[in-house]
């Protein structure tokens, strides 16, 4: 299908113009590493579109389509239905979209897929803002975060994508992070094997938008998990499994201080956010029946 000009050891080209240290690049390599060649990927505009390539040049060696910001999930469902008509029941159809393309602009089409029980896999890599167009705040940007549209720090809390998915009672959804790559790969495999819609919400540190040195991507991802800013759990056939449990969460201040985007948060704000993070973690444990 492809004219190979430069070989690569995986399905993704080595020279892709994502920023140095981009978490997304590591995520997409691992995702396609698990899913393999028999995949069709639907990508909306956003930083992930860098992997679609430019002009005739492709950045990935799998079939795919670059769609619109509003309808990644709908495209994926249509392609899956087309494959089924052709008698192809094996190809994984993956929607791979950013947070803006998922929790804001594409939420209706994703909701439709979840309601119709289309056998589509959907991944939201969450870099917590509209990065590709210049760091505008999204409804996944965390409270307190600087973005170009929230110059004084975002005043409101983020939308909880997984709770929205759980409200649709889909067979499998989970959060994942670069803090634990083997766990991420395991979840990609599970999502692939799910009979029905599956959703992964992957935390995606972005040095450009979060204002930290590119070398700290994994460190920031780990700190988010340890502080409870990013909770790792799975929802499988109605049961919640919490993947990382803590006796005590690390202070959110540690996570914030690694990044420039939280510089504007004062002591009072910090205490308030700390309280929110703690109660979110406790609410998750309660939801999982662990308390």
């Amino acid at each position, binding site marked *: 299908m*492809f004219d190979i000009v430069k070989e690569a050891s995986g399905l993704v080209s080595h020279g892709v113009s994502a920023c140095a240290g981009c978490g997304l690049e590591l995520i997409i390599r691992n995702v396609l590493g698990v899913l393999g060649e028999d995949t069709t990927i639907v990508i909306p505009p956003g930083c992930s579109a860098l992997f679609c390539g430019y002009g005739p040049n492709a950045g990935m060696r799998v079939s795919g389509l670059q769609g619109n910001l509003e309808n990644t999930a709908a495209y994926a469902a249509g392609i899956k239905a087309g494959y089924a008509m052709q008698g192809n029941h094996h190809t994984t159809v993956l929607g791979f979209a950013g947070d803006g393309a998922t929790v804001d602009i594409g939420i209706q089409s994703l909701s439709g897929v979840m309601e119709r029980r289309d056998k589509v896999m959907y991944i939201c890599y969450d870099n917590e803002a509209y990065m590709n167009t210049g760091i505008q705040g999204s409804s996944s940007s965390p409270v307190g975060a600087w973005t170009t549209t929230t110059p004084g720090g975002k005043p409101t809390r983020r939308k909880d994508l997984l709770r929205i998915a759980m409200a649709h009672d889909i067979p499998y959804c989970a959060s994942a992070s670069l803090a634990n790559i083997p766990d991420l790969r395991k979840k990609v495999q599970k999502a692939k094997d799910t009979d029905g819609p599956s959703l992964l919400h992957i935390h995606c540190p972005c040095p450009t938008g979060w204002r930290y040195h590119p*070398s700290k991507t*994994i460190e920031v991802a780990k700190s988010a998990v340890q502080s409870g800013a990013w909770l790792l759990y799975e929802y499988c056939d109605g049961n919640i499994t919490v993947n990382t449990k803590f006796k005590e969460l690390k202070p959110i201040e540690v996570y914030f201080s690694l990044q420039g985007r939280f510089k504007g948060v004062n002591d009072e704000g910090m205490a308030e956010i700390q309280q929110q993070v703690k109660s979110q973690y406790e609410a998750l444990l309660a939801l999982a029946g662990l308390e």
Partner: protein
Amino acid sequence: MQRQQEKPTSKLRRFRLYGPCSHVFDASHTGSWRVERPDVAFDKCVKCGICATCCPANVITVDKGSAECVRIMWDYCKGCGICANECPQKAIAMIPERSVK
């Protein structure tokens, strides 16, 4: 802007497809972005492979059998420094690209 292709993407008649369609699997020379480069102290390396699994560009190979056990594809390494930051042995240092060593 993408232009309409003049040649079909595939020579197979069943799949003859006219663009705009990316069909050339290529790689940009992202190594030219580098301002710092990872410098590996091979004697400190315990060959755990963490640098390779953490590399976003997937350009690191850890070869257990070789004395120069960490190999990097310089054409594509962007010099982000994640490998140096994650190495548990602190065996990788980031040095300015133009320095002589």
